[in-house]
């Protein structure tokens, strides 16, 4: 089993505007722990740095500072060659994440072949069908030769999940896996991911902007605002007892059946006024400085 320790992750992007160069800090000292069998939800609005963290974790981007350490239970670290096998990702848009040119079989057979999980030919084929059945795509023999455009969004996302798990992934980064799907099939895909997580004891990072599914699906929630963690804690605590202004705003935006005629953000909120200099840690029960190295973060006092 594999766990991931993300420490003080920083990612800067340089924005060139004519001759002027400005620096945009997309991720500012974010620390996360992903442990086997647990799901951490990363919640935040567009541009808060969620996807940047996913890209760094899957090694599509290099962090400006900070470390990502992937460790097995026996204390060995996962090296470069094994990284691609152990850390996998499910993308947001199932219509873009499968190559329209290739069959479903190709998408699942390639990871198997790259990591030498199966021998060429019949063994790979059998394994592909097995993977398809694991993600409830039946009859697998019928699905395998099809091409992505012949499948529905939910089916495609199942294929994407099967592809991610094919090399034997232990860490799964799910970047808004259900946001492009019909509401009616979201739960099915999430429950499938939950089942696979239990079966394989996966460590899952669930990236979303939807608090309801975050609470349903995850054990721990980390709220991100403009690159900084502003609140973290057990899923229920964060949602039922939000401390940070932005988390409160998010929680208020979720429909509540108990309170019909819910209050929406009646006054337009001044986004720039939201303070992301401190983070409420439900585990410690106190406010801490945000945007500084985790070891140096001091407790601060805040009114709310």
């Amino acid at each position, binding site marked *: 089993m594999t766990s991931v320790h993300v420490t003080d992750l920083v990612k800067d992007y340089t924005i060139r505007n004519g001759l002027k160069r400005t620096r945009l800090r997309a991720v500012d000292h974010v620390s996360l722990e992903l442990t086997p069998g647990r799901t951490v939800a990363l919640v935040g609005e567009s541009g808060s740095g969620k996807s940047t963290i996913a890209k760094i974790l899957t090694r599509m981007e290099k962090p400006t500072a900070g470390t990502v350490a992937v460790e097995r239970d026996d204390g060995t670290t996962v090296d470069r060659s094994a990284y691609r096998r152990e850390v996998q*990702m499910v993308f947001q848009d199932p219509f873009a994440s499968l190559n329209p040119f*290739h069959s479903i079989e190709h998408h699942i057979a390639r990871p198997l072949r790259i990591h030498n999980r199966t021998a060429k030919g019949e063994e790979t084929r059998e394994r592909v069908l097995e993977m398809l059945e694991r993600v409830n795509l039946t009859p697998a023999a019928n699905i395998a030769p099809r091409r992505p455009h012949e499948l529905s969004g939910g089916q495609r996302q199942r294929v994407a999940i099967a592809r991610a798990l094919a090399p034997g992934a232990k860490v799964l980064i799910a970047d808004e896996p259900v946001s492009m799907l019909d509401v009616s099939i979201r739960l099915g895909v999430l429950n499938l991911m939950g089942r696979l997580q239990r079966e394989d004891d996966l460590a899952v990072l669930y990236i979303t902007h939807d608090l309801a599914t975050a609470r349903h699906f995850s054990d721990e929630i980390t709220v991100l605002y403009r690159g900084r963690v502003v609140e973290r804690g057990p899923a229920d605590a964060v949602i039922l007892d939000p401390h940070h202004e932005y988390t409160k705003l998010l929680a208020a935006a979720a429909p509540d059946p108990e309170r019909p005629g819910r209050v929406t953000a009646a006054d337009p909120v001044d986004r720039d006024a939201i303070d992301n200099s401190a983070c409420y840690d439900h585990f410690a029960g106190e406010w801490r400085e945000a945007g500084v190295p985790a070891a140096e973060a001091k407790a601060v006092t805040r009114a709310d």
Partner: protein
Amino acid sequence: MTNLKPTSEPSVADSAELLAETSAESGRPVRSGWRMLLPTMTPWLAIGLGLIVAITLFGVIGPYLVGDPRAIRDMGLTGPSADFWLGTTQTGQDVLAQLAHATRGSLQIGVIVGLLATALSAFFGIYGAYRGRAVDEVFSLFTNVFLVIPGLPLVIVISGFVPAESRGLWTIAVVLAVTSWAGSARVLRAQTLSVRNRDYVAASQVSGERPWRVIIVEILPNLLPVIASQFVFAVIAAILGEAGLSFIGLGASNSSTLGTMLFYAQNGFALSLGAWWWFIPPGLIIALFGTGLSLVNFSIDEIINPKLKNLRLHRKRARRAARLERELAQAARRGGPAATASKESAR
């Protein structure tokens, strides 16, 4: 009643055709990715393919069926006859035999240059765009430099520089390829930049695919229509370019192409002597082959840009509707009372 029949018949046929069309579109799913790349058969595509196949067959098989194109006879310039279908040149050489050999030479040049130019543009366009950053900058600059080099003057200079005896088919082909790949490379670069940023490319990278495999297996198939269209275009450009070079006497020595035929026709005062059988056939072959390739290219364009296809189908339906309307109006005019009576009875 009877006069309504002719109007109803075409409409039935039309709806049957429409049905066939829709069932072909939504029917059995196409299994292989390669099928997706094939253009739909249209009259234009059929004509284009017909022209290409006919001229290619003439170029490939023709030389074995005709006599020696260099054989000189003491009959001088004669028009088409039973013995010499396309007449003879000033020195009594068989124009048909020359035409067969020249077509073969031109096709050879066209295909060689097409392949070379496509390979060059694919390398500089796709690889540069995929690697990005410094490699892309350097390749882009290199492409742009070749893009602004005036092609024909450079070709003339290079061809003039290489001595005539070592100026073979391959020299000319390389010269033409080197001056003609840059435009396609830029188009391919733009397309690759768009494809490279799609999620499925990222997904294959995340699953550990090697860069060359990502390029060849994941990106390249999605660029194939563009590459095919550019290959076709490169072939046309090469045949025309080679004809131009040969016509001004800078073509490959010891080879005969349609350009050299025109060069000799010009030198032999074919135009002023009114020997149309000497210069029209090579010109016509160039023109028809170019037409054929262009027609195929239009069909490939429909794969790249499906909107064009929808436009064509839309026009087809609009024409059909207009025809139907016209026929109905005619029927109403012809059998005015009967038509109104039937309408009333229907009411």
